[in-house]
């Protein structure tokens, strides 16, 4: 079974600075997807960014980018120019790719609570 580990329960960053959230995962599959979801105080889960394992290029979405290291099974999220609205819980998640015969469910890490200080 796949597992996702987020080793930082809490992180803080100054507004306008850059912060990196860590995520590692364990899988025997060769093709899969990785996601970062944001959960603000409203509790809704919002997709931040997605990475396909077969793609070597790291995904980028405006101020959000990932550092995907497939061999190391590492998938960190970098938030540049942090804003007060970035304060939230951030969850890393894994899903098998279609055709792998694996599960279609998302497997989540425990989350990292990000605080942005003005």
């Amino acid at each position, binding site marked *: 079974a796949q597992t996702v580990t987020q080793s930082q329960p809490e992180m803080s960053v100054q507004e306008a600075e850059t912060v990196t959230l860590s995520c590692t995962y364990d899988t025997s599959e060769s093709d899969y997807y990785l996601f970062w979801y944001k959960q603000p105080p409203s509790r809704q889960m919002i997709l931040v960014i997605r990475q396909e394992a077969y793609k070597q290029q790291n995904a980028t979405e405006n101020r959000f980018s990932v550092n995907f290291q497939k061999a190391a099974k590492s998938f960190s999220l970098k938030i540049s120019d942090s804003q007060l609205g970035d304060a939230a819980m951030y969850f890393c998640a894994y899903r098998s790719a*279609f055709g792998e015969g694996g599960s279609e469910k998302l497997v989540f890490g425990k989350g990292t609570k990000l605080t942005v200080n003005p």
Partner: protein
Amino acid sequence: EPEVTQTPSHQVTQMGQEVILRCVPISNHLYFYWYRQILGQKVEFLVSFYNNEISEKSEIFDDQFSVERPDGSNFTLKIRSTKLEDSAMYFCASSVLENTEAFFGQGTRLTVV
């Protein structure tokens, strides 16, 4: 922008009562999911649903739980006899295909007293 909507946003129920949580997935999506998040814990998969049947379910999804798509738009989660430990945030999600990202609703907070 299309979104997944869930009702109610908060439900309080007595232990042993039946509850139905409702979701309207995004209209062109084919895969539907329920997840739950006990306060302070990680988000856990409950069940996935495709083509009017359960395609996968977790160990949590026992006989007390059921899902249904009663019409072309709604997707429901029923808990037959609620327990205190069922208190959690329940999220509905949907995706176009099985290998595309899931979009989540805003959640229903279920409190069992």
